């Protein structure tokens, strides 16, 4: 088993989950209606909980404690896709990002449920129900708002357009990907992206939303290698403000 390759996979997944969970948690108490506030917060908690489970696996592979990894690294040590660090914007963008990311996340975990790396397969099987709800939530919202009224349609389409190339960046190739595929640990980003495209296309069609035409596709890469927008630095600093206030302390 190639530990470096597995760590690379775990880091990008865990960082994705932590950063989107953190972003989505910013809506808690400020959502568009009480009921949705509660639902969105639950999913943010799920994401952060899932990221923690993956940092635990990393710790078992010799990395530092989950808290240390999550709360003391600098932005350029994070491997999340840039899509997930973008500011929340309005609810249209938050929902579209949630939709685009969660479809990918569900497929990724679905594939990993059969991974030859059993600890990860176990986590993947455990979170199946959470992800099913997340995708159900995302599909329902995107379908309804995509086709509700002119304003909601326009907003959702604009959010989709804005998010699109960042979303393609989720499937950036990693250095050790071939090893993961060869060792049946993970199916690889290309086949993940194919499945993802077919799943989201079906929902977007129902929503009356269109994917930007393929000649404009230009994946925003770099996140997996620690290259980030100007938004991640402040996010990480904010997230770890208290933790770093007294690094010797137990909080």
């Amino acid at each position, binding site marked *: 088993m190639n530990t470096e390759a597995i760590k690379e996979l775990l880091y990008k997944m865990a960082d994705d989950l932590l950063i989107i969970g953190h972003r989505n948690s910013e809506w808690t108490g400020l959502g568009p209606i009480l*009921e949705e506030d*509660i639902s969105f917060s639950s999913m943010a908690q799920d994401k952060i909980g899932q990221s923690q489970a993956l940092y635990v696996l990393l710790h078992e592979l010799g990395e530092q404690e989950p808290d240390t990894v999550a709360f003391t690294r600098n932005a350029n040590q994070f491997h999340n896709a840039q899509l997930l660090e973008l500011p929340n914007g309005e609810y249209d963008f938050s929902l579209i990002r949630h939709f685009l990311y969660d479809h990918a996340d569900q497929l990724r975990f679905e594939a990993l449920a059969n991974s030859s790396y059993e600890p990860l397969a176990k986590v993947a099987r455990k979170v199946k129900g959470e992800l099913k709800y997340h995708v159900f939530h995302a599909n329902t919202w995107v379908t*309804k708002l995509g086709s509700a009224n002119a304003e909601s349609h326009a907003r959702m389409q604009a959010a989709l357009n804005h998010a699109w190339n960042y979303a393609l960046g989720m499937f950036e190739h990693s250095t050790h990907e071939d090893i993961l595929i060869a060792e049946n640990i993970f199916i690889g980003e290309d086949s993940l992206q194919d499945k993802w495209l077919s799943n989201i296309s079906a929902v977007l069609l129902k929503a009356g939303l269109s994917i930007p035409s393929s000649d404009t596709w230009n994946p925003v890469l770099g996140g997996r290698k620690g290259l980030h927008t100007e938004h991640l630095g402040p996010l990480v600093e904010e997230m770890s403000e208290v933790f770093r206030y007294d690094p010797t302390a137990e909080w």
Partner: protein
Amino acid sequence: MIISLDPRVNRAAIEADNNIEPLKDLDQWETYEVFHQKRRGDQHMHVGIVHAPNAEMALIFGKEQFGRRGLSVNIWVVKTSDVFTTEYDDSDIFETVPEKQYREAGGYKVMDKINKYKKGL
């Protein structure tokens, strides 16, 4: 501009005198009554309501507002306006006269007859 201790509030760049139009009727949508089943085999029970614009979203909301601590295996939602109820004013319709032994198990005392019959043998 509001200067807050909450970085989220600062990011939202909120004016202190941001007067808004009042919410209109039905801004919060209509309500659905939520029923949940604690585990298979149990009856569904009423647990409360959610405001939702349609049934699918009522399910999505009901699941988190009433089932987020894993205390349910199934939920139903039904529009409040589709529920028919008796009136509390008419509670007395449930007060039936007690002389209805014919539909209670205790209303049937066969042993008396059997014992009498056996004695006479």
